[in-house]
């Protein structure tokens, strides 16, 4: 049981990459990439988690109470924002690709096949 979150994270990485590799639609591909990234949130937070501990916020609890690791949370917070910005950039690339070539299928976007 204690290993479950990490196994889930590893699974998410692989299944997300599988989605990317088999994708026939750029928007789909970008969402799959976001899934891959979400695995890192899970790993980071799982690492910092402690049993029977409170959140690292001491407005109502006393300082010195056993609390989970705040650093991983700060890192995850940064990671979430980074992830969403990259996703937004990729989505706008996909929209532009569609605007230009009329398709979201990467197979049809490759240099050789887009003419004619």
């Amino acid at each position, binding site marked *: 049981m*204690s290993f479950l979150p990490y196994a889930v994270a590893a699974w998410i*990485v692989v299944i997300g990459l599988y989605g990317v590799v088999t994708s026939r639609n750029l928007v789909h591909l970008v969402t799959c990439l976001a899934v891959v990234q979400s695995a890192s949130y899970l790993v980071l937070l*799982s690492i910092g988690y402690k049993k029977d501990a409170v959140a690292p916020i001491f407005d109502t609890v006393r300082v010195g109470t056993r609390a989970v690791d705040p*650093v991983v949370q700060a890192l995850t917070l*940064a990671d979430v924002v980074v992830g969403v910005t990259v996703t937004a950039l990729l989505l706008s690339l996909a929209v532009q690709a569609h605007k*230009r070539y009329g398709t979201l299928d990467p197979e049809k976007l490759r240099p050789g096949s887009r003419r004619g």
Partner: protein
Amino acid sequence: MTPKVRRYVFLVAGAGLFIYLIWGFSGLPDFGHYVGPYGDVLNKIAVPERSNTDIVTAVNFDYRAIDTLGEEFILFAAVVGVASLLRTLHDESSRDPHDDAPGRRVPETSLAIRVAGLGLVAPTVLVGIYVVLHGHQTPGGGFQGGVILATALLLTYLSADYMTMRRVGPTELIEAAEGAGAVGFVLIGLAGLIFGTTFFENVLGKGTPGQLDSAGLIPFSNVAVGLAVTGGFAFMLSEFLLQTLVRRGTSGGRKREGP
């Protein structure tokens, strides 16, 4: 590679990757039994030294503020990137906003829903501002509040129409907010350098933990980041919206491609 070959190749390599990741993760301490010096030290010292009760915020805006600065500019770069990517091509003309953009079924929105939606905007904005301002005490801060505020702008759109949104948040203003937030955060860093000794050093009184005016510069950082995040997200979302209103002119578009 054909799709089929690619899939098989990936399945083999992906299985390898999975096993390898598991091998790596198995070296971690058991889930729920983490002991690391960094977080524990911060949990101990942040409240007395920084008068900041939300340690995560203290980490983001003080101990590791430079990370947040970098991240702020990642957002900034993405926003500028989206702007440069989605800038209107010469052969596109903006659709008359009162025209129905195809695929958009919003115009039938009933009055009741509009009123309800607009009614939701005010509380959402208030919540967003509250979350930004109290980031140093309770969960929340510049990012979360900023995203909430940007979503409020979107709510305006969803319940009314795009023109209202343009009135609520014209693009230049959003861009200026994003720029101002980003500059503001750098200036907070510089304040430390000018009035103190190092970049991002706190130079304000720290107040009593738990009060709104505590934690020195952290609330100001929260506001700057909140501004930048609101601006950034609102810009990206409205830019995507604008896209649905732009159409290709009859002369251009993809006919340009190919020999």
